[in-house]
């Protein structure tokens, strides 16, 4: 016997949980709304084109210049250099963990990667500032150790755990029958990994790489503390740069409330938000489109 009151309660709770579950979407909508609300006014003063492709970022000069092109280049180049380090290391670690390591070693190495992920970004930034920067300065004979190269290394180690964990999941879920078939045909374990397992897990690995890049481009404290902070287009990898998140964090405190500078910083936030949003949509698309491979039953 189910009372009608119980039935009503059941239904109510269903809707309650549904309502709570939509919180994430509403938060995302609110973030978008408020970013645009506070960021758009700058475009009354500066055109969108001049804002994005302007070469000069002098927000406190008179007259002020709001061109974020050097900041965008700074962000993109730092992310790309870090990707050159993080993608090979991350994917190779994932292969090691899922295909090669014995289960005992795996249980040691995997937590290490997870702990690396949990290191606070400010600590990594601090490490880059006080340990890596003087080291680079001494050994490469450059003016300042706080530069793009240093920031890229630090960012790489922040995105490796993301790349590694998701790639590993993708490799792990390649059906054993595929690998067995390859081994039975006489391929070595290595050949099986390169020609069977990796291609089968490619979509998952691409997702992992994109999410890793997204994490690197949005990371704030590391680039704020380590990248050097010069708002200009870099000429070499040892030049200081000022990526987008670093500018927001460094200048927000001194920007007058609802002044042009304040609006401009929110507009940078919009640009950053759009960057990571696109990355995430692509990642989501990839992981959904090519989800199943072969006779996957997982």
């Amino acid at each position, binding site marked *: 016997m189910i009372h009608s009151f119980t039935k009503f309660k059941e239904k109510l709770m269903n809707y309650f*949980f549904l309502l709570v579950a939509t*919180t994430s979407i509403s938060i995302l909508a609110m973030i978008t709304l408020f970013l645009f609300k506070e960021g758009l006014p700058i475009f009354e003063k500066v055109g969108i084109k001049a804002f994005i492709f302007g070469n000069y970022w002098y927000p406190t000069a008179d007259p002020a210049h709001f061109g974020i092109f050097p900041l965008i280049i700074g962000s993109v180049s730092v992310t790309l250099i870090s990707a050159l380090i993080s993608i090979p290391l991350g994917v190779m*670690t994932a292969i090691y963990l899922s295909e090669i390591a*014995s289960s005992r070693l795996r249980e040691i190495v995997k937590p290490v990667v997870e702990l690396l992920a949990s*290191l606070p970004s400010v600590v990594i930034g601090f490490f880059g500032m006080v340990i890596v920067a003087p080291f680079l300065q001494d050994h490469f004979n450059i003016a300042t150790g706080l530069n793009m190269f240093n920031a890229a290394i630090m960012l790489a180690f922040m995105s490796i755990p993301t790349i590694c964990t998701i790639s590993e999941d993708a490799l792990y879920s390649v059906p054993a029958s595929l690998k067995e078939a390859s081994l039975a045909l006489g391929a070595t374990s290595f050949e099986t990994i390169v020609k069977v397992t990796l291609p089968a897990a490619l979509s998952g690995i691409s997702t992992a790489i994109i999410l890793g890049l997204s994490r690197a481009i949005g990371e704030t404290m590391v680039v704020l503390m380590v990248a050097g902070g010069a708002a200009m287009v870099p000429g070499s990898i040892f030049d200081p740069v000022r990526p987008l*998140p670093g500018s927001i964090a460094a200048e927000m405190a001194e920007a007058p409330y609802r002044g042009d500078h304040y609006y401009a910083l929110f507009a940078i936030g919009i640009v950053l*938000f759009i960057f990571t949003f696109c990355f995430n949509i692509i990642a*989501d698309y990839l992981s959904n489109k090519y989800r199943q491979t072969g006779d996957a039953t997982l």
Partner: protein
Amino acid sequence: MNVKVSAINIDGMKNPEERYLQEIRREKAPDPTGPISESESQTASSLENRKQQKPLFFNKKRTLLQHLFFNLFRSAAMVNALALFIILYFMIANGWRAISIDFLTQPPREMMTQGGILPCIVGTLCLSLGAFLISFPIGVSSAIYLQEYASEGALVRAIRLGISNLAGVPSVVFGLFGLSFFVTYLKMGVSILAGALTLALMSLPVIIGATEEALKSVPATYREASLGLGATKLQTILRVVLPAAAPGILTGGILGISRTAGETAPIMFTAAVFFSPNLPRSIFDEVMALPYHIYVLATAGTEIEVTRPLQYGTALVLISLVLGMNLIAILFRARLRKKMRR
């Protein structure tokens, strides 16, 4: 070739290394078909034997290649471990001298060049705990909807997309949102409340993900048994599914807290201040926080070089806090997984 086949195990995981060694050993071992004696060199069978020998030469090259690359993969994994240990080593080696009872229980003195970090510790604990209290119920309820109630459809897909995008929003953008919405629009001012809310939004995806995983691992038979005994869906969830998933959910909660404790960018504009002599008295007070304190001392303090030991000390305290919580969660989860497998 049958050696390889027999060495495969169903999950394809168990002992690839052993399998690999076995392969090498097999290459080194003499051909089981036996060496060809010179006397019967022209017979048909020996011709066949010679044909079989040829791949052996290639196999050596192939195993060498495999050997080479497997070592490369192994060293890649070791680089990560090395990075972690180098960072930890420098923080501990330079930081442990700064740690003392006074350092942990005194407020900063003399323009923050001396004294302790008590207000920062208290501030960080307040912020993380506040964020946890806000995000934990919301995250767990969201996960319950996604796992227990929802059927796959456009709405669920939208919710999942929302969660994964929320997880990808840069921390500094959360800070901007917190500043414009909580601090300014809702007039909370720079306060623990505004900071905790901002951090809560950030940790929501972590908690939802962990809870979903925990709920997924509860066997369907538990639910069926409960429903079969006449319990309603809600009763089943509250009395059967949630208790069974509780350890996993708590692990996610711990991971969520530890993530918020180390975040700097979201609290920069919403909760943290340069210096405040007093401990916070209400949730509307602004606070000092460990991560922000490190940043301030290292980049904007009055005497950056002089306060370096304090910076290392603060970093060490923060690391111990965050890694400690993570280690507990990871070990806890590893034990859980082992239990589930049995």
